[in-house]
């Protein structure tokens, strides 16, 4: 499970471009839950994700994964607990390495790396089996450079790579945003399938409210670096995009009112 407690982060403090990215962000995700995260630009979605993965150090607050405090750990030191798929299909793979080399890197995520051969025949069997479930014919292209693949294919492989080794939390950072609608749908279906199959604790950031409601079992909305809306279960089942928008407007109105009170 993941527990983020009262995270605060300010970029460029004390300067005219000061940005308070996280303002007391708190979120608990129990083991096996699939949470979707939405919010407008600058709401703190990506910063929050980067804080959990360790790419972004935070000013204050605590991050616990499975009860272990990982707040001060570097990205590579928490990689055995955190799997991640990036928004940019180019970011999640090494383009001048082959498909099997990329998958071997992912299979070794957070593991001790030695002078053993990186790609072995027993791994190839596993890679082929996993790639076959994509139905893209990639299982016959193990030694092809991954840079030869399309953005959608690379993103699909990135997803497989994230699930090669067990993780405590899977972070998906708008991972369908850079894809055309058809490919995005394919990757999203694949996401649901993989998450269900492995029972992964998942946090998916998305820009699409539709997507946020269609997949997963809980939806969280961020605004001004905080969680402002948290719906799950029956309350979420009947929800549609306009409802969500309305709730968002309402919440934002309250915050604005709060701000004006403060300013007044």
């Amino acid at each position, binding site marked *: 499970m993941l527990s983020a407690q009262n995270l605060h982060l300010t970029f460029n403090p004390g300067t005219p471009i000061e940005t308070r990215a996280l303002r007391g962000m708190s979120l608990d995700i129990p083991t096996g839950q699939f949470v979707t995260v939405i919010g407008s630009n600058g709401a703190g979605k990506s910063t929050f994700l980067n804080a959990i*993965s360790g*790419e972004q150090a935070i000013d204050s607050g605590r991050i616990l994964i499975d009860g272990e405090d990982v707040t001060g750990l*570097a*990205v*590579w*030191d928490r*990689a*055995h607990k*955190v799997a*991640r798929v*990036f928004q940019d299909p180019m*970011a*999640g*793979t*090494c*383009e*001048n*390495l082959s498909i099997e*080399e990329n998958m*071997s*890197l*992912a299979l*070794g*995520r*957070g*593991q001790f*790396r*030695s*002078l*053993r*051969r*990186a*790609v072995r025949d027993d791994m190839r069997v596993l890679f082929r089996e996993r790639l076959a479930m994509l139905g893209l014919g990639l299982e016959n292209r193990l030694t092809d*450079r991954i840079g030869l693949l399309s953005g959608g294919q690379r993103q699909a492989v990135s997803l497989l790579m994230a699930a090669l080794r067990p993780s405590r939390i899977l972070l998906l950072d708008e991972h369908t945003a850079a894809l055309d609608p058809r490919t995005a749908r394919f990757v999203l279906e694949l996401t649901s399938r993989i998450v269900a199959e492995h029972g992964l604790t998942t946090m998916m950031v998305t820009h699409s409210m539709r997507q946020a409601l269609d997949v997963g079992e809980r939806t969280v909305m961020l605004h001004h670096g905080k969680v402002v809306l948290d719906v799950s279960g029956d309350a979420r089942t009947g929800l549609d995009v306009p409802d969500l928008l309305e709730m968002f407007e309402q919440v934002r109105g309250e915050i604005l009112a709060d701000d004006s009170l403060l300013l007044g």
Partner: protein
Amino acid sequence: MSVYSMWGALEIGLIFSLVALGVLISFRILNFPDLTVDGSFPLGGATAAILIHHGSDPFLATGAAVFAAACAGMVTGWLNVSLKIMDLLASILVMIALYSINLRVMDAPNIPLIMEPTVFTMLQPASLEDYVARPLILLLIVLVAKWLLDWFFATQIGLAMRSTGSNPRMARAQGIHTGRMVLLGMALSNALCGLAGALFAQSQGGADISMGIGTIVIGLAAVIIGESILPSRRLVIITLAVVLGAVLYRFFVALALNADFIGLKAQDLNLITAVLVTVALVIPLIKQRLQKKRA
């Protein structure tokens, strides 16, 4: 071009193919533009020469040279990784520092090795002339180095190093300590250059403080020539191409210097190299522009 100068070109070409393999690691695999080479090559030469001069075993002396150069590479890596100094600048700082260090190591601007034993005199079979034996011994060393590199980059650590150069963000997300990989790669790269320097001093009759000038450019020239004559994505082929590139480069130079009608002299070597590398770097750009015009 005489047979003698052909063997000579092969000999120096093979020595510089070790530099080229080192440059391949820093520039291409780690994506770290490293000029330390200009200092670690003479550091290798100086270390080996002074130790042999004081009567130590040539193999031990060569080993010490490799170790010293590896440390120089680590310092560059450390400046970049831990002190956040820009890669190119970090390597220039170490290169300049090494100039003083090399003078200290040798305690003189040069150390001749004329009568002393070298790895070549010790390995040379009696039936071969020394100008033939040296290139053959070097060929063996280079092939072993190439084979070791090919093996290393197919291991888990080797793959981690390649991913560090190719996509550091992804590498970190896979739990790879990218800083450590940079240190290791820089040590490996400069160790090869130090080995080349040690062998150069032993084959050319001594170490000299100015022997390192332009090493990096020659190494780059070899890499670029190799990549253009044998373009490949497979590392086993790339390392072979780079070795061939270094040898070919020396042959070009020997040809140019031997063709009296061009009027080039030995002192023009660095100028020729710089022009050659510039041309090789610009060709892909020109190709691209031509293709765009056609499209």
